[in-house]
């Protein structure tokens, strides 16, 4: 018989840490996303001076464990006197900031490659049509290239942010009291690993269920052109079917 009072109590404590998990997630994918745009821009540049460092960045941050990257930020940066004496130190000494930084630097590498994949798959003919209409530079990027690239990158990106949601658990190892960290603290006090970790896992499951629904809905909303042509009969009689849940492959 499950100990319901204990489970409710644990759930309450874990949910109190949920804002920290969400903050880690939102901040790291936001910072990582902006960083990724710059890395992608450098990576596809014809100039080696830009593309080589971008390649190097992607190689390092995709190729090494996220946990080690986070430890290097948390334990490693403080070893440099330059960092300790800089104006950033009051911020960089915070475990939460280190966790966000570690997560953001890592996801930026992956996201840059996802964006690049979306970009290189934009049909050259559609770009040419835009040029022939007098578009260039930012207008061309904003009106034609980016909208197509983002649509193509979305399925892969939704997988990346689901991975990131789960990766926030690593922040517990640099003493950030997010959901997993709090779970471990409860276990060290009660030795009831099964109940507590199941509660924590349930929270991540629900979070990712919501994420899947959100990204799936966004993808559905953005890609009416990939769906079957609405026939006059079905369009008139019933609404279009809802998106398939968790359908990473579109079409």
């Amino acid at each position: 018989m499950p100990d319901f009072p204990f489970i409710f109590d644990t759930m309450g404590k874990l949910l109190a840490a949920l804002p920290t998990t969400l903050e880690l997630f939102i901040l790291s994918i936001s910072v990582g996303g902006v960083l990724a745009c710059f890395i992608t821009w450098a990576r596809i540049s014809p100039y080696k001076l830009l593309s080589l460092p971008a390649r190097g960045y992607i190689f390092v941050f995709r190729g090494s464990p996220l946990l080690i990257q986070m430890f290097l930020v948390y334990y490693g940066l403080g070893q440099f006197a330059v960092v300790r004496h800089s104006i950033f130190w009051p911020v960089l000494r915070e475990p939460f900031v280190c966790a966000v930084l570690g997560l953001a630097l890592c996801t930026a590498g992956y996201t840059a490659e996802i964006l690049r994949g979306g970009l290189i798959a934009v049909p050259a003919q559609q770009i040419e049509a835009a040029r022939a209409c007098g578009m260039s530079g930012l207008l061309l990027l904003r009106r034609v290239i980016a909208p197509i690239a983002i649509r193509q990158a979305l399925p892969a990106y939704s997988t990346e942010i689901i991975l990131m949601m789960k990766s926030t658990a690593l922040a517990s190892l640099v003493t950030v009291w997010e959901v997993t960290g709090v779970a471990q603290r409860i276990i060290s006090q009660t030795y009831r690993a099964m109940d507590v970790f199941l509660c924590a896992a349930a929270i991540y499951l629900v979070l990712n269920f919501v994420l899947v629904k959100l990204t799936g809905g966004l993808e559905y909303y953005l890609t009416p052109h990939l769906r079957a042509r609405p026939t006059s009969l079905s369009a008139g009689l019933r609404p279009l079917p809802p998106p398939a849940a968790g359908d990473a492959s579109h079409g």
Partner: protein
Amino acid sequence: MADTARKSARGVAPLALSVKGIHKSFGQHQVLKGISLDAHEGDVISILGSSGSGKSTFLRCINLLETPDDGDITVAGEQVKLRRTGDGHLQPSDRKQVDRIRSELAMVFQSFNLWSHRTILENLIEAPVHVQKRPRAECILEAEALLEKVGIADKRNHYPAHLSGGQQQRAAIARALAMKPKAMLFDEPTSALDPELVGEVLKVMRTLAEEGRTMLVVTHEMGFARDVSSRVMFLHQGKVDAEGTPQEMFGDGGSERFRQFISNTIR
């Protein structure tokens, strides 16, 4: 059908487009060896030639989708500013001018090249609203009239992938018209279409010719060249091999090579 052919407007109407001495090489291969062309307002010029003769490259040089190695381009009296770079190649020196001139020369592509993520109506108003900065409401009204004209008004909210090839090409022609171009460039507009869809596109192009629009048409459609165009230009190995009115060209005026070309084309 020869009586329906339009008379050349040469010498009467002002110049819409003037191109002089266009040279272009890809690596060692010299594709264009000095091609010149004057198009007066209302001219419909068919550019013929076997594959590899440089006709598409020539058309793409006119709106600078390819940068010519040498030559002059003047659109409605405005010369395109080109400068020579260190390695001897030409380069447009005024990005804004190139964008503006491109928006005055609408292009219709062989593979339609409609923007797949936008509806047909959105495809039509994209450049008028965002490049020419005209009021959206006005552009929508004009776009609807154009879709009516090319016969696909009922497809305004469809996406390109939901249309047949012929419908997509008619939408692409409407998109070109929406920019109110001074001249239109057609790059083999019917070559990617199933034979039974070619007619509907040619019919639209014929209407445009009758309206007096200035058109440069790279094509393999001999019927269109003979019946609709005011002038025919035959390219061979990067040079103008023969040029004249359709009557001259399809009569006894064309070159020996041109006669051979059409006898191979019309079976």
